[in-house]
C-alpha cells in the first residue's frame, strides 16, 4: 500500500529538477566522468525520471513479466540519463556506470537490450523504436495482454526519419490504444515541424498533449492522460540549450 508520506517523497523527488537537485544527478555524474554531455542527454532526463518513478509498471523483478509495461528508448544517443535512471531504480548496479563505454562494459554509447537488464530494445540508428513499439503493442494485443502499455521515446529531430511516419500512420489506423509515444522536442529538427510536432500525430488519429518537458507534474498528467481507443503522444518541450 502506498502511504501519503511515500507519495509526498516521490513528488518532492520529481520536483527536484526545478531546484537543480535531480535525484539521479550523482549517478549521471558517474556516467559523465568529466566528459561534456550535449543537450540530448539533459533534455531527456526529466521525462525518463517521471516515467520510471511514477508511470511505468516495471521493476527489476519484473523485467521478463509479460504483464509489465514496456519502455523503448528510440533516441538511443540519450543513453547516459537512461543508464543513470536504470541504476537509480535498481535495474543495473551503480558500479556499471563508472566504466561506461569501456572494453569490458555492458553500457555502450547506445543501449543493447541483450547486455543491460531492463532495456527493451537496442537502439542508436534513429527511426527504429516507433516501428518496434507498434509491433510490441500489436503483439500484446494479439495475446490478450491488454493492461501493459508500450511507451516509446523519440526526439523531434529523429522524426525526420521516414520510418517514423510509416509507424505513426499505421498506429493511428490500427487504433493502438496501448501505445504512447513521447517526443522530446528541443527544436533540433533541421527544418522544424510546421504547426508543431503534435499535429504530425493527430492528423493520423492520435490523441496528443504538449507540455513543458521540465515540469514533472505536467509530464505525469500527460503520460497518464491517455483515454479512448487511439494511440497517444506526449510532446515534451524543452529548451534546446539545456
Amino acid at each position, binding site marked *: 500500500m502506498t502511504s501519503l508520506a511515500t507519495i509526498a517523497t516521490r513528488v518532492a523527488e520529481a520536483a527536484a529538477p526545478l531546484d537543480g537537485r535531480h535525484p539521479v544527478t550523482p549517478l549521471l555524474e558517474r556516467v559523465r566522468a568529466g566528459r561534456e554531455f550535449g543537450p540530448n542527454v539533459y533534455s531527456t532526463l526529466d521525462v525518463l525520471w517521471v516515467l520510471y518513478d511514477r508511470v511505468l509498471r516495471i521493476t527489476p523483478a519484473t523485467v521478463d513479466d509479460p504483464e509489465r509495461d514496456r519502455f523503448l528508448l528510440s533516441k538511443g544517443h540519450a543513453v547516459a540519463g537512461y543508464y543513470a535512471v536504470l541504476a537509480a531504480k535498481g535495474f543495473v548496479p551503480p558500479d556499471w556506470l563508472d566504466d561506461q563505454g569501456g572494453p569490458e562494459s555492458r553500457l555502450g554509447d547506445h543501449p*543493447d*537490450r541483450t547486455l543491460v537488464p531492463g532495456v527493451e530494445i537496442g537502439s542508436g540508428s534513429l527511426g527504429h523504436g516507433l516501428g*518496434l513499439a*507498434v509491433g510490441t503493442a*500489436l*503483439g500484446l494485443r494479439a495475446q490478450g*495482454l491488454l493492461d501493459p502499455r508500450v511507451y516509446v521515446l523519440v526526439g523531434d529531430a529523429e522524426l525526420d526519419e521516414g*520510418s517514423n511516419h510509416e509507424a505513426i500512420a499505421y498506429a493511428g489506423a490500427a487504433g493502438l490504444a496501448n501505445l504512447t509515444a513521447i517526443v522530446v522536442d528541443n527544436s533540433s529538427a533541421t527544418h522544424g515541424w510546421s504547426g508543431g510536432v503534435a499535429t504530425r500525430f493527430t492528423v493520423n488519429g492520435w490523441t496528443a498533449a504538449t507540455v513543458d518537458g521540465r515540469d514533472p507534474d505536467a509530464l505525469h498528467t500527460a503520460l497518464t492522460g491517455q483515454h479512448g481507443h487511439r494511440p497517444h503522444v506526449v510532446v515534451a518541450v524543452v529548451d534546446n540549450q539545456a
Partner: protein
Amino acid sequence: MRESFIDTTTDLLAEDPRTALVLADISAASFAPAAARHPDRVLNVGIREQLMLGVAGGLALTGLRPIVHSYAPFLVERAYEQIKLDLDHQAASAVLVSVGASFDRAAAGRTHLSPADVALLDTLSGWTVHVPGHPAEVPGLLRATVAAETSAYLRLSALSNDHPYAGAGDLVVVRDAGPGAALLVAVGPVLDAALAAATGLPVTVAYTHRPRPFDVAGLRALAGTEVILVEPYLAGTSARLLSAALADRPHRLLTLGVGREELRRYGAAEDHLRWHGLDPAGLRQAVARFLTPATAAV
C-alpha cells in the same frame, strides 16, 4: 510456390496462436480469409516495408513467431537495416518469405528484380536460407522454419523443376557420374537446366534447396578436384563457403549465377536465364569450357 505458401501459412495461423503474418499489401487479398479469422495476427501495414519489419521485430519481442512476406526487393533490399537491427540486433527472429526471385517479373524491370537478396542476407549471421525448387517443397520447409526459433528466409520463385526433392536441404545426388567426375551443385530451380547441361559429360549433379547453412560435410564427401556451383541468384554468392570447405585440398571452382550488370532488358524469366547463361545451352557451354580449359584457351 506462392499458392503453396499461402495455403500453408493459412493453416499455420489456425494451428498455432503464436504464428503471426505481417504484410505490406503484397498478397493481402489472398490472405483475406485468414485475416478475417485472425485479425490480430494477420497484419497488413500497407505499403510500408520498414514498418513491416519493425512490426515483426516487436511481435517477436512479445513472444510471437512472425512470418513476413513481400516481393524480394522490397522485403530484403528496401528493409535491410530493419532486418539487421529490428530482428538480429534485438535477438528477435522471424521467417521472411519472398516472391519474385531474381527475375520472375522480368517485364517489370529493375525495380522488381532481386538477384542480390541472398548475398545481402549472407552479410548477417545465423540465418537459414531455403530456395525451393518445386512448389511441393514449400510446405515442409515453411513449417520447419516456423517451428524453429531462429530466423529464416524462403525465396520462392515462379520457376521450378519438374520434381520436388524432400529433405532438410543436405546435398542430394541426382545424377552420379562415378569416381573422378566433376561435382555440379545446383541450388533450387536451376536443377533441371543443370541436369540437361550435364548430359553426356563426366559430371555428378547434386541438389540442395538450402544454401544456408550449406551442407559442407556433404560437399566434402562428394567433391573431387573440380566443383561447379549453379545458383539462381547473384553468381558467386556461395563461393566463399565452398572455397573454405575445400581449402585443405587442391580444387578448381566454377561459380555460375546471375550477373551483376543491369541489363536494362524486359522479356520473360526464360529470356533472362538465357542472357545470364543459366539455360541448358549456356550452362553446358560454361561447364564444358571449365572441364577442358586447355582446349577452350586454344
